[in-house]
Each structure stands twice: as C-alpha cells, then as structure tokens.
C-alpha cells in the first residue's frame, strides 16, 4: 500500500576526513536533500533516498551525490547514511551512521562518523557534525510532508453506490493547439430521485475558433456498471482512453495524465460526499492524442493539452461558474464557484473554490480557504455573469484576479436535468478568453505573474 504522505527535508553537515595515506585531514561539507516515500515517524524505521552535494577540500565538489538514508532513531537507534559520489575521476562511497544514545541525545544525533570506500577498499574515514547553532532552524524549516504520488486512474472509477438522487460526471475538455479548436466530451450518470433505473448519457461538442459550435448527444441508455470508468453503448471514458460515437461524431483518443490530482473541492469532500457535490481533476493536466471525426472533417490531435474532471453529487447547483485554464509550463488554474440548491445555502453568495497549481505547488494550500476564508472573512468573490465573469481573492501574501470572457458565438447552451427532474441551463465554451493576474505583497502589491488565454480557456456558466 502506498503511504498517504512522504517526508522531505534538507540537512547540512560539516567536518573533516582523513584520506588513506595522508597525515592531515581535509575539511568536508555535505548538503543533502532527503526524500522518503512515507511519513517519517521517530519510533519506526524510515528508508529515504538522498541527493545533494559533497565538498572535500582539494578533492571534490560534486553535485552528483546519490544515496540512501535509514532513519531509525528509536527502533534501531541508528541513522545511517550511504551515498556515492565522484571525485577526482574516482567513484567514492561514504558509509556512516549516527548511533543514537538516550544518554547523549544531542551528541549522538548530530555526530556522524563515517568510512570512505573506493572499489570496496577503505579510502579514508572522518566525522561530520550537524552544526546545531546555525543549521537547526533551516533543518526544521525544511521539513515537508508531501502527499505521495497518486494514480489518476483510481479517481476515474465510478463512485455511485446505488443511492437514488445522484449524478456522476466524467468530462474532458481540451484544445487542439494546431487548429485552436476546443473539444468537450461529457459523460454523465443520472440516478433519478424516484428510484427509477439509472441511465447514462452525454455529448460531444467542438468549438472551432471562428465558430459555430457543433455538438451531438448520445444516450440516454440504461446504465451498466464499469469498474474503471464510464462505459455505455460503445462510449467509453476510462483510464488512458476515450472513445465512442454520437450522431455523426466519432472519437478515439488516448489520454496521458501529466501531474498530480487536483482537488478543487476539499479532499475530504471527495472521499466522503457530504457536500451537495464535489469536483476533482484526477490529473491536473493531461495530453490527448487521437482522432475526432465530425460532420465535414476530422481533427487529428497530437499531445493536445486539456484535462479530465469528475463530479459526484446530488445534482447541479443553482448557479455556477467553472474555469479550467492551462497556463503553460505545467501551471493550471481551476475554479468552481457555485450557489447551492439547498434551502438556506441558496441565499449565500457563490462559494468559490480556486486552485492555482504553480511550480508544482497548489495555492491556496487549503481548498476551504478560497470558499469560506476565515469564517467568511477574506473569502474569494465571484461575480457570475455573461459574457464576462470574474473571480478575485487574497490569501496569505498573494492575491489573484481572474476575468473570463465567453463570447456568445463561441458558447454552447445545453439543458441539464437533475436527478429530481429539475432543469438547468449550462453555457459552455471551450474556447473562452481569460486574463489571470497574480500579485504578491512586498511593501506593495507587485505583479508576480500574468497570463492571457486567448480562446484556450475552458469555461462554463450555469443557472436556472
């Protein structure tokens, strides 16, 4: 089983080494980045990999350090470092361990005697020390407990548990970079409130840059469970592959996930469906290769950027807005702003879930932050409208402003039906424009990044 979280930290040690055949010692410094695939807890043994830099006066300054760390301060009373590096054209191995003693906790946890080996023969020995006075705070501050890499496929499996009054969606949006055509593939399971037989349906829509939007529906057909994704009457949306036909459309596309899952709503709300609905991206970004045939032509996709998303809940919101913006360079912005149908909640302004995945890190760190702020204070605000809707908000030292434009000619209006039979109208554009401005406070608000998406944003606004 994969652990939920890993551990990362950096460590610096300085000391000296006496090489075999030399009378004096040489100064030595080791800067290490350590990564473990599981949460590091002191009472158990954690195996980690390490990379970093070694400096030995007059011999080595290598950044090619690779090795292993065995962290077991209580169970085995040992923290063992084994690492390899190249110096002076020779391959060296360092093997040493801190031998933890309850009688001398500080000394035993900070002193690392080691032996240097080359070709299995002893090449020297020395001692490195962790300089507590200068290195302790950076060491403690460097600790991170990142989530372990998750498999996108696990989030594609159906969530529906047979309860009436549920809806579940697999939808994929992408933009063909050559033709700038947007594509929307929507697969939906609806289990009506009245307990009648669930059915699946969906559609495909193409958004050429110059319009007009074309689409075709498939279904409804009785729902047949599929353990890995959506599958119905020749239409499939599962791990790595989308294919099917609707009207004159036929598509067969492979999907390559690129990036960690992105939980637009809080992670717990996906695990335990307590909110009216929740949305996630099994992979924040994906690339698509394949063919989509449409009346009058064929679209050949070659690593087209986009993303698949999943929704599970009780039905559509009262009003909502959604944006998926591929900002380039692996950065992604995902926004869902919605007003619930539930009595009481329907009087609130839109709850805004904004997730900016930038340089591998997600801002704001908690999904709840943009939706509810601090008991409502500081929440992000969305003005839902058409053709322009906006989102703005501040969290920590950053603030963001997003302006989405869905030109009428590039927007497709479709009717949605809730499990309770209620109707909603969705206005969707996979070739919308967006402007994103990210600022950081440094004495004053300074622009940190700005993106303009010209017809490559994927957006939708819905109401009743």
């Amino acid at each position, binding site marked *: 089983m994969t652990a939920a979280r890993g551990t990362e930290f950096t460590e610096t040690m300085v000391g000296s080494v006496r090489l075999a055949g030399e009378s004096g010692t040489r100064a030595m410094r080791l800067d290490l980045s350590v990564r473990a695939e599981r949460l590091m807890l002191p009472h*158990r*043994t954690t195996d980690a990999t390490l990379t970093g830099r070694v400096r030995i006066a007059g011999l080595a300054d290598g950044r090619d350090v690779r090795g292993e760390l065995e962290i*077991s301060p209580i*169970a*085995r*009373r*040992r923290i*063992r470092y084994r690492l390899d590096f190249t110096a002076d054209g020779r391959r060296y191995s360092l*093997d*040493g*361990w801190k*031998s933890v003693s309850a009688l001398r906790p500080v000394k035993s946890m900070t002193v690392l*005697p*080691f*032996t240097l080996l080359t070709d299995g023969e*002893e090449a020297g*020995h020395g*001692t490195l020390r962790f300089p507590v006075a200068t290195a302790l705070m950076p060491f403690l501050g460097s600790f991170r407990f990142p989530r372990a890499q998750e498999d996108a496929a696990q989030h594609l499996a159906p969530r529906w548990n047979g309860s009436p009054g549920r809806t579940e969606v697999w939808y994929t949006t992408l933009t063909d970079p050559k033709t700038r055509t947007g594509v929307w593939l929507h697969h939906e399971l609806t289990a009506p409130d009245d307990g009648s037989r669930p059915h699946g349906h969906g559609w495909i829509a193409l958004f050429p840059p110059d319009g007009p939007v074309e689409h075709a529906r498939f279904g409804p057909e009785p729902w047949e469970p599929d353990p890995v994704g959506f599958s119905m009457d020749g239409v499939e949306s599962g791990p790595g592959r989308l294919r099917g036909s609707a009207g004159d459309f036929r598509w067969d596309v492979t999907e390559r996930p690129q990036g960690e899952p992105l939980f637009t709503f809080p992670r717990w709300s996906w695990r335990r469906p307590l909110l009216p609905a929740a949305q996630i991206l099994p992979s924040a970004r994906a690339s698509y290769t394949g063919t989509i045939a449409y009346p009058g032509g064929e679209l050949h996709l070659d690593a087209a950027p986009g993303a698949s998303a999943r929704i599970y809940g009780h039905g559509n919101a009262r009003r909502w807005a959604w944006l998926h913006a591929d900002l380039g360079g692996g950065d992604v912005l995902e926004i869902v702003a919605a007003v619930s149908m539930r009595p009481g909640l329907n009087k609130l302004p839109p709850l805004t879930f904004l997730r900016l995945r930038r340089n591998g890190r997600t801002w704001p760190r908690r999904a709840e932050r943009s939706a509810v702020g601090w008991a409502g204070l500081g929440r992000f605000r969305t003005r839902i409208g058409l053709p322009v809707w906006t989102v703005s908000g501040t969290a920590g030292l950053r603030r963001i402003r997003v302006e989405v434009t869905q030109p009428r000619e590039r927007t497709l209006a479709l009717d949605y039906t809730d499990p309770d039979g209620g109707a909603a109208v969705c206005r969707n554009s996979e070739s919308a424009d967006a402007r994103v401005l990210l600022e950081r406070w440094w004495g004053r608000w300074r622009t940190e990044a700005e993106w303009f998406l010209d017809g490559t944003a994927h957006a939708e606004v819905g109401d009743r």
Partner: protein
Amino acid sequence: MSTRLDGLVAALLADDGRAAWPGAVPDRLGRMLDAMPSAARAGVHGAAAAIDAYAAVRMGRRLRRLTPGERERVLASLAARPALVPVLDAVKVPVMLAAGTERMLHEEPVRAPSAPPFEDPPLDCVPSAEWPDRSTADAVVIGSGAGGAIAARTLARTGMRVVVLEEGRRHTTADFARRAPLGRFAELYRDGGATVALGNPPVVLPVGRAVGGTTVVNSGTCYRTPGHVLARWRETFGVDLADATAFAAHLDEVERTLRVATQPLDVLGRNGRTALAGAETLGWKAGPLRRNAPGCKGSCQCVVGCPTGAKQSVQLSVLPDACAAGARIVTRAYARRILTDPDRSGGPRACGVGVRRPDGTDFEILAPLVVVAAGALHSPPLLRRSGLGRHPRLGRNLAVHPATSVAGRFTERITAWQGVLQSVGIEQHHDDGILIEATAGPPGMGSFVLPGVGRALRTELEQAGHLATLGAMIADRPSGRVLGARRSVLRYDLDPRDGRRLLGAVEAMGELLFAAGAEEVLTGIAAAPRAGSVDELRQLLSGVTARRLHLSAFHPTGTVAIGADAQMAPADPRGRLRGVHGVLVADGSALPSCPEVNPQLTIMATALAVSESAAAGGPG
C-alpha cells in the same frame, strides 16, 4: 600500603635477610595486584592491614619492624585458629606466585635464548585505536579463542568478510621468550588470573585474554570428545551435530590443524615419568597425553604462553589461516553490545556490534551475522547487556571441571618445572568421572598450595624441587551460574556427588604418588596437610569434606547451551541463539553439558560444526 605488603611478605616467607630474593617479592606482588580486579586487590590489602594491626596490638610494633622470630610468633598464633587458616591460604596464593618467580629469577637467571626467536605466522591484527569508527563486515566474531578462531576461519573461507574482536592484545612467541613468566601472567589472564567463582568452597577459574584466548595459556592437552558424551548430547539434548561420525570428522579436521600427537617421552620431565612409574606399579591405565605441541621442548610455561612456539595455540594454527582467507582481527576491542534491529520483518535480527576501545571511545561494525565466542564466562553477560538475555537458562548450566592437586615429596630431586607442564594422563578412574593428569606449573604458578606459613612455608618453598604434583579434574554436574551484565559474577555450588568425587581423586592421586615412591603426600588441605602412607591418607580424608579443598577450574562450559528443547536451551541445535536472528554461539558456552575431558578439541569441533551450518544456511 606497600609497607603492609612488605611486612606480610616478610612474615609469610620468614625473611631473615639472608637471601636477597624475598626483598624483591613485595614489589612484584604489588604490580601483580594492580592487574587484579579491585575486590581481589582490596581483599589482599585488607588482609595485610588486618595482620599488621594484629601484630601492632600484640607486639606493639607493626610486622615490618618486628624481628623474624617475633613475626613467626604472630603468624603462629593466627594459624592456630582454624577459622583463620582459609584466609591465610587465600593471602598466601598471590604471595607464593610472586615469591616463586623471584626465587627462580635469582637462582636460575633467564638465559639469553640460544636459538633465534621463533617467528609467528602472520596475522592481520589491527589495534582498536586504528580501526575506523564505522565499518561493515559480513560477520563479526566476538572472541579469538578456540571457538572464535575456528568460526572465523570457516566463515572467511566461504568468502565472507570477517572481523574478529579480541579484548586482549596480540602476544608473539618472541614476546614470551623475552619476558619472565609472571611478567606475562597478569597480561595474559583476565583479572590478573584472579577470577573466582563464589561458593563454598570458592573456585579459582582463570581464563585467558589475548589473541588466541585461553588456548594461549592452556596446557595443550587435546582429548577427543568421549563417545558417551556425544551420545548423551544427541539423545538427551537433541543435538544432531554430535553425531559420532560427523563429529569425528570435525575432530579429525581440528586435530590436523592443531597438529595433535602423543607427547614423546624425551622431554616429558621427571614429574610425568614419576606419574607413569606410579601408574605402572599399580597397573593403572596411563600414558603420555595427546598434545598440540609438536617439537615441545619442555619449557613448562604453557600457562603463560609457549616461549618456543611449539604449542599450536589458535593464534599460531587457526587464525593465520583465517587471516589468509581475509579475516581481520581487531585487538584491545571490548564488545560492548550486540546491535539488533528489533523491527525487522520476521523478528529481531542482529545487525552488528558496538565496541569500546581502552580509551573509552566507541566504534561500531555492522554485520548481518554475529558469532558469540567470548567464552562461557563472558558470553552470557554480553548477551544480557545486548538485551538478548531473556532466556531463563542463559548463564545457568555452568560446568567447570573442578580440579584439585596433590604433591608428593620424593627423596630425589624431581624439579617438576622442567619438562612438559601437563604430561601424563591417568585414566584409571575416568569412568567414575575422575581424570588425573600430571601437571606442574612454573614455581608458584601451579594450583598446588604449599602448606604452612612463615618458617615452615619457607622450608617447603626451598624444598619444592623434591615435589611431584598431580592434578585431577572431575566430570561435574552443571551447578554453576554466570550472573551479571556489565561484568560477570560467578557462582558455583559444588554438588555433593562432585565433592565425593574430588576427595576420591585426592585419594587416588595419593595412592599413585606413594606407589611411585613418595615419602609423604601433601594433600593441599590446610587442616590435614600431610600423610605418610596410603592408610594415613585415607584416615585423614575421612575426616574432611570437599569444602576444605583448594579448588581451581579451567574448563567453563555450557552457559549458552545448544539443544532441541526451547525451554531448556538458549540456543538451537545448530548454535543459533533463540529469540533473535543472526547470532551464532560458537564457544565453550555452547556445549550442552560437561565434556569430561580437556575441552579444546570439543569446543573447536562444535564451533566448526555450527559455523559450517551457518555458512551453508545464511545468516538467518
């Protein structure tokens, strides 16, 4: 303090100033005491102080200032109290040790060796001070004695990287040839040779501490394990490796390595020949012993290291092979604890050894296999301080072969210390658990304690050249225990059956000496020191118990016994310690019960069997 020792020595040896050597004894005694454990040192100093105080009260002056005659009166009045005799005997032993050496040095100065010094085969020995703080190996062997050496050789020959840890240091044959016996004594023995098992009577249990372990200081006698002992191990203890054929092959291999052969008569010495003559007169089964000393020159210094390199102690025979196969020996390295990984899947696993240098600094060696061969007295404490001592039988089952000795006075000069130290075995009573061996140490170093104090003792000392000495050891019940974790504390309660056997052994030895022509027999029993005939001896012995004997023992075994019964044996029949993976027991402590003969071959064959089994089966 030294003034008290001066007085004590002068009184015990009746020093009247006419001979020079008694004057040098206090200094040598002081140096010897320094090597002994603090309790023994305090005991001797305390006894000296008490006798000094008694003299001051009785005579108005301290012993040192009394005349020889006055000192004699003080000692006579003390010796007249039976309760004090054992105390005087205990003090006498170290004094005799120092006196014997000084007397020999003055009367027979060490001759410069005529032959060029013997060159020992090379060993890869590294002092612990030069060993790195962190290292790894495939196997670490704790102890370089009989068991450890053969285990190291076996494992190294399979290609494993083996490190042998030895608390003592390396002594070469050239060192032995250069120095006086007593000068080597303190260094070669743990606790300066003053290891004592508590009990009634206490048992002196000297064990070696050097590269080569006790094999450096044993007599070199090599008995094969008796068939009935192997049968008992197999049938009662479920030890399959004691299969007669397989074990015989291991014994053959060990004998080849040690070059074991029957001792030729030429250098046997008069002590041994006297014993043979006595046995012949009585028609007893006897003969020169099988020994691992080809070319023995009869230096009679086996117990302080053979000065000619004839005795094939393991540092001359086994360890060179081990080093040739890649094993390395770290000397002056005290195994502090065996390191274990308690959280390994499948249960706790040994992962190396934490070691202390003489300067108090530590180093560690990681290895998946740890071979415990620290000897039966020190393996249990090592396992306890490593957190591996939970088995209820660990440290129990200690058998020691308690031994006592008897001397016979002959008209002619015997000079027992010229010839082979342990020369002749008399097996007439072996079926009754009594093995008699003609044994004579260098002056003062034999286990026989001369009777009397003062003038009487001095006379005995000066006539020691007319004494022939025999020793007898008995097959004992395992009635001892090794206690303690930081250091070992020994307890040995002589079983009543074994007490009777010991008295029987004294009688048999007396009979043999009389048959060989002895004028009188010195029993070593303070309350009944002399007998002029066999009948008188029997009469004397009928009035004493074994508690009156001076007991010593040289063969501790059985404290981490191997056996099939998990409740009774801390180690399994293949020598693997129970409760942890990767710990092998390969020394005298592994023997399931008393081997009934000098155990070197038995220990080595057992270590060979368990280490071959471990090498074949991996460290698990």
